[in-house]
């Protein structure tokens, strides 16, 4: 009946209630909505950013003659219900051919791919001539034109490579350059741009020839047909994920079932798994963050309602006095207070939607469509019910008091210090949550709610302890004559309302601190992980056939390693075994991301190649070794059962040597003529070597002739080894020659010992055995990633040439291994270089890792590399990875945390203002009364200013502490990355600068507010104030 006038009379309170409820509604709605939008955005951006892995690449499995399968036939493999979310299929036909120019017949036939792709001409810049319009017309690349000196009208005789017959004559009618070399049109099968003329072992190759589809109409070709399509980002929705995965996983089986000869090459199923993992991040982080704010907002609503209802006590009493029952009075008051709360919560729904639109346009870059998941109205309904329950509970408690109690201006102090049931429930709930978080397995929402719960529990406990403590302080200060402090403390002790402020501020500070920690720690971890995954600030990759020449080029470009560090990766055939990351320790420590943290000083020292021996270098076309044998006798081997195996009489041994060429780093095997038994006098043995450009003598060893497997033992005494430039190559001490371990060896052995220039003591059953000069360790020290199952003496890793290196593990890895963080052995690049060998091109990557300066000068570096014949690509940048992680569900979700912190502070200020607004009259009257009794205005001023400033400052400190503890507990539960496992450990340490800044800022803001408000109260504490009615 009088609702409208009641609301109008206390419009400010209604506004505050509406505002707080609006926040609750907004949180409730925005949480699930934002989570859904983030999930959809992640899906859209993943599909857009990884369009090639997302694509379905359907191709007939093998060459076919004629058109038994048409490209259109492959389209049947895409289920009809998924067609709307895929791009239209792009058809193609191709045939790998060998070709020749008839006029130059007899040359090796280079390879090429003759291709038709639907709409290809629009993707090419035709630099000369035109696109093919008839069968057997082709358009060649401008690269080929240069390489092969093609002209318009040049005719090529092409034959399918796989059968070596058929084909036809192709006539060049134009030349092209692709408009976008790596454009989406090509579905990863883009023109390579490579073209090279024949070399020793290579017949040469041309770039792709494009032709008209009619070329393949006859039966002369053995073409393969393709049909490619990809999910359309933004059109494919979260609801399609399961079907996309299922269809991708079953397509090949379906093809067999329906008799379409095709196979799908797609990583879409993996991508779907990746998207699902990111969805989990979003659905974990966002609701929990929003629940914290909503929970706080509910508490603030309860506190605000408590203040509002408290102020209505006289009206409640009046209603009861006029005969209204408690229930009727409760109903009327619930209506009056519930209406703004209801309106606020519903408006919050609209505000949440508006916020979503803003976020969608900014953070999410329109990556998500506007949807209405069922969780949104459900969350809004829950918020409405929850907010109204809070209203009812707050009203109910007051309305049910006796009328005589309601009529009192000041409630009598309860005997002792009791805690209200609501406060007690909150404390118990919060402490239970905290205990669950600290002792449980980290599952469930409670751990992540720790900051809010802890802030609430600690804030309330502190607030309730504050009242008696303030009483004690007041009495103590009074005894000491400190009137201002005594009055201020007294005011605190007799105003339970201060508990509301203290609790609210503590929670706000806890939430803000948590938000700051979550945000900064997540950002730090993203940057750290990006750094480790990239390896450095940037990575250039290139191919090289020779390790030595690669390093020479690097030394020319940046001899002092100001910009870069070279890294060579050698991959084993099996992914389960170790790959080799060859690094240059000194420059790696400076250039790689946190490179110096890879190992400690001793680790670095052990890793590096020996520097105390000079290599045994020579320039020569031959080597002459003066050798004798000593103490030769047959060696009886034993079978597994212990029986002796008599192989007869040994006939000879062969002295072998490994030399490493200075020219290209390759390692050669030098075999001297056999030393036949019995021979006791020194013989001069000569062997040709290709070392006019210089070589290092790396190993000496003993081999056997093929038809002489009989065991032999004895000494091979090398008196001298000479080359063209060295009459004697000084072989050094016997200790400088280390046995090269023989994996899976028989009972053979070899050691070096003094005698002559070098004496090799051997036990040979036929296997070649070597001792290695100690310029390179025979067992290579390596830092091995910890997850690898290490076996002492049996673990190898491929050298640059792919040959196995036996490793000695340096058990001093102190950080993640950059870039290649699993199944990796980090070895010294110089050691590997000294070991020599022809690079296994297919299994070896040459990389230059750049620091910031190097990245800034990347064009200079690539230019110099190009001059040296290296085609280097910038394949990875740390900033790109940071940006990519910045678009992950985790990062997008955690962008909320600063907003949450700010919202928390706004709520705390609301509580503060509300408490001040509802209590300033009585406070002003108190101070006015004190002034009348002779208390100086300066003393009441100090008391007015500090009665709230002190508790609030302490509450900020307490809340900050709770936020830090909460972050420590909750952050491990927050999935910062889609893959929680990995070699790069999460750094969840406290960010002290952030914590200090937020603490200082929060204290300054709230202290300023309370000082300002306290001064205002003191100014209003005049005599007239005493006569006012408190209502």
């Amino acid at each position, binding site marked *: *009946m*009088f609702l409208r*006038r*009641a609301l*109008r*009379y206390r419009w400010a309170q209604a506004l505050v209630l509406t505002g707080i409820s609006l926040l609750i509604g907004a949180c409730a709605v925005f949480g699930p909505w934002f989570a859904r939008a983030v999930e959809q955005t992640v899906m859209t951006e993943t599909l857009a950013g990884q369009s090639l892995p997302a694509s379905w690449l359907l191709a007939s499995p093998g060459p076919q003659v004629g058109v038994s399968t048409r490209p259109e036939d492959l389209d049947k493999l895409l289920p009809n219900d998924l067609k709307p979310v895929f791009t239209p299929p792009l058809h193609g036909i191709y045939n790998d051919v060998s070709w020749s120019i008839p006029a130059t017949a007899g040359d090796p036939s280079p390879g090429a791919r003759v291709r038709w792709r639907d709409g290809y001409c629009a993707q090419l810049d035709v630099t000369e001539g035109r696109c093919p319009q008839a069968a057997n017309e082709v358009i060649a690349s401008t690269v080929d034109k240069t390489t092969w000196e093609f002209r318009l009208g040049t005719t090529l005789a092409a034959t399918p490579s796989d059968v070596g017959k058929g084909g036809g004559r192709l006539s060049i009618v134009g030349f092209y350059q692709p408009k976008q070399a790596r454009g989406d049109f090509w579905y990863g099968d883009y023109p390579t741009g490579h073209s090279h003329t024949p070399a020793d072992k290579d017949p040469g190759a041309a770039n792709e020839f494009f032709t008209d589809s009619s070329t393949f109409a006859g039966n002369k070709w053995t073409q393969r047909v393709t049909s490619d399509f990809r999910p359309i980002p933004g059109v494919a929705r979260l609801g399609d994920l399961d079907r996309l995965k299922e269809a991708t996983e079953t397509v090949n089986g379906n093809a067999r079932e329906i008799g379409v000869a095709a196979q799908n090459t797609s990583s879409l199923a993996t991508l779907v798994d990746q998207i699902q993992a990111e969805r989990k991040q979003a659905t974990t982080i966002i609701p929990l963050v929003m629940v914290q704010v909503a929970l706080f907002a509910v508490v603030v609503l309860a506190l605000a309602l408590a203040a509002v209802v408290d102020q209505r006590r*006289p*009206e409640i*009493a*009046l*209603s*009861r*006095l*006029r*005969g*209204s*029952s*408690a229930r*009727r009075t409760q109903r009327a008051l619930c209506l009056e207070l519930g209406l703004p709360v209801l309106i606020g919560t519903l408006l919050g729904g609209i505000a949440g939607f508006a916020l979503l639109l803003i976020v969608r346009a900014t953070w999410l870059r329109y990556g998500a469509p506007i949807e209405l998941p069922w969780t949104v109205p459900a969350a809004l309904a829950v918020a409405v019910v929850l907010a109204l329950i809070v209203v009812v509970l707050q009203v109910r408690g007051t309305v049910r008091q*006796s*009328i*005589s109690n309601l*009529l009192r201006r000041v409630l*009598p102090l309860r*005997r002792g210090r009791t805690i209200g049931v609501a406060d007690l429930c909150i404390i118990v709930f919060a402490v239970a949550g905290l205990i669950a978080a600290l002792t449980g397995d980290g599952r469930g929402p409670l751990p992540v709610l720790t900051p809010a719960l802890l802030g609430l529990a600690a804030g309330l406990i502190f607030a309730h302890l504050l009242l008696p403590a303030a009483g004690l302080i007041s009495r103590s200060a009074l005894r000491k004559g400190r009137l201002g402090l005594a009055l201020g403390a007294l005011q605190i002790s007799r105003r339970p309302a201060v508990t509301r402020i203290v609790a609210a501020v503590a929670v706000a500070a806890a939430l803000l601190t948590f938000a700051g920690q979550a945000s900064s720690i997540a950002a730090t971890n993203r940057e750290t992980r990006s750094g480790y995954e990239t390896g450095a600030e940037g990575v250039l990759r290139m191919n090289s056939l020779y390790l030595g020449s690669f390093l020479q080029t690097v030394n020319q470009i940046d001899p002092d390693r100001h910009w870069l560090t070279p890294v060579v990766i050698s991959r084993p055939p099996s992914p389960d075994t170790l790959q080799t990351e060859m690094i240059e320790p000194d420059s790696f420590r400076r250039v790689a991301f946190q490179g110096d943290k890879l190992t400690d000083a001793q680790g670095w020292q052990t890793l590096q190649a020996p520097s105390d021996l000079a290599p045994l270098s020579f320039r020569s076309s031959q080597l002459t070794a003066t050798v004798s044998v000593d103490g030769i006798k047959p060696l009886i081997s034993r079978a597994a059962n212990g029986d002796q195996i008599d192989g007869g009489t040994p006939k000879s041994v062969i002295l072998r040597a490994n030399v490493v060429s200075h020219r290209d780093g390759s390692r050669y095997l030098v075999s001297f003529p056999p030393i036949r038994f019995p021979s006791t006098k020194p013989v001069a043995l000569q062997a040709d070597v290709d070392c006019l450009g210089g070589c290092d003598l790396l190993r000496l060893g003993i081999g056997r002739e093929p038809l002489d497997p009989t065991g032999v033992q004895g000494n091979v005494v090398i008196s001298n080894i000479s080359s063209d430039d060295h009459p004697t190559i000084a072989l050094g001490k016997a200790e400088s020659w280390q046995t090269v371990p023989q994996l899976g060896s028989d009972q053979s052995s070899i050691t070096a010992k003094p005698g002559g220039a070098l004496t090799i003591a051997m036990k040979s059953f036929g296997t070649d055995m070597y001792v290695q000069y100690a310029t390179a360790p025979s067992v290579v020290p390596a830092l091995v990633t910890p997850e690898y199952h290490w076996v002492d003496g049996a673990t190898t890793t491929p050298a640059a040439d792919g040959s196995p290196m036996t490793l000695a593990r340096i058990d001093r890895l102190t950080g993640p291994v950059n870039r290649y963080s699993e199944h990796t052995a980090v070895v010294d690049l110089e050691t590997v270089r000294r070991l020599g060998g022809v690079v296994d091109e297919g299994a070896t990557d040459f990389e230059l890792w750049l620091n910031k300066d190097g990245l800034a000068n990347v064009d200079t570096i690539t230019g110099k590399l190009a001059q040296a014949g290296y085609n280097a690509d910038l394949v990875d940048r740390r900033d790109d990875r940071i940006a990519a992680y910045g678009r992950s569900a985790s990062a997008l979700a955690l962008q909320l945390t600063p907003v949450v912190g700010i919202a928390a502070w706004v709520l705390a200020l609301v509580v503060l203002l509300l408490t001040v607004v509802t209590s300033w009259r009585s406070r002003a009257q108190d101070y006015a009364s004190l002034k009348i009794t002779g208390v100086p205005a300066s003393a009441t001023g100090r008391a007015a200013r500090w009665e709230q400033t002190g508790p609030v400052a302490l509450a900020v400190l307490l809340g900050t502490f709770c936020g830090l503890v909460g972050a420590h507990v909750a952050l491990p539960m927050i999935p910062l990355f889609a893959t929680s496992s990995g070699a790069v450990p999460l750094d969840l340490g406290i960010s002290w600068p952030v914590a200090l800044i937020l603490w200082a800022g929060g204290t300054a803001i709230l202290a300023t507010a309370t000082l300002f408000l306290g001064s205002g109260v003191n100014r209003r504490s005049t005599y007239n104030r005493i006569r006012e*009615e408190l*209502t």
Partner: protein
Amino acid sequence: MTGLAISTTGLVHIYRAHGHDVAALSGIGISVRPGELVGLLGPSGAGKSTLLQLCGGLLTPSAGRLQVGEHNVATMTDTELDRMRSGDVGIVLQGAGRNLIPYLTPADNIRYAQQAAPDERDLPTPEAILELVGLGNHAATPLSQLTPGQVQLCAVAVGIATLPGLLLADEPTSQLDHHARDEVLAALRTINSETGMTVLLVTHDPEVAATLPRTITIRDGRIASEGRSGEEYAVVAVDGSLPLPPHVAELLPAGTLVQVTTDDGVIRLTPVEQEGNQ
């Protein structure tokens, strides 16, 4: 409409605070006839307001009997008390502002007070009520524009909004100037005479008391005396005790032995000389 009678016997009320029991009323026995206008007098803390609140059902007696009309207040449930206050008993609290909803006009305040009235009751219009107390022209005037005396009259009007049988008014004339005080007293007398409503008002203003036909003075939780038409009488309690008027009590310190004799209808109190007494 007829006024309600009030009858108390051995009425006791004890406040419990800070671990101490304080007896606000110690065996009060009074009887107020329907339609009477009675003033409760006494110093602060004597128990006047407590008696008033007991009559209004705002407090529950600790012991004794309290009958308001047909209501045995001591045994009533909260619902019954609500019902009693909604129709039979009107209350005017001390401090006019406390009786009024600040954002409502006088007429709306009366309507607000009438909301809980029993359906069967034929309620007067707010304007009629205001006319009765002399505020007929201020039905729609905002409270903030009324004088303190008018606000108090408005509070009285709200107290009689449902034309109850009993009006309990706590210090209705305090903090008012003489003119306003007289207006309020006049309004109460009018209400009493025109409606037959029993009026029990608390005051400690002797001038106000002097204008009332009957006063009951309470001291230390007991009936100290009763005034009728300007004459002050001591009242014999149920247990036969007789509180002496203050000027007599001064002559008889506590513990004095008194010889009580009757002489031709005159009761004589004679202090007896004791050993050690001066």
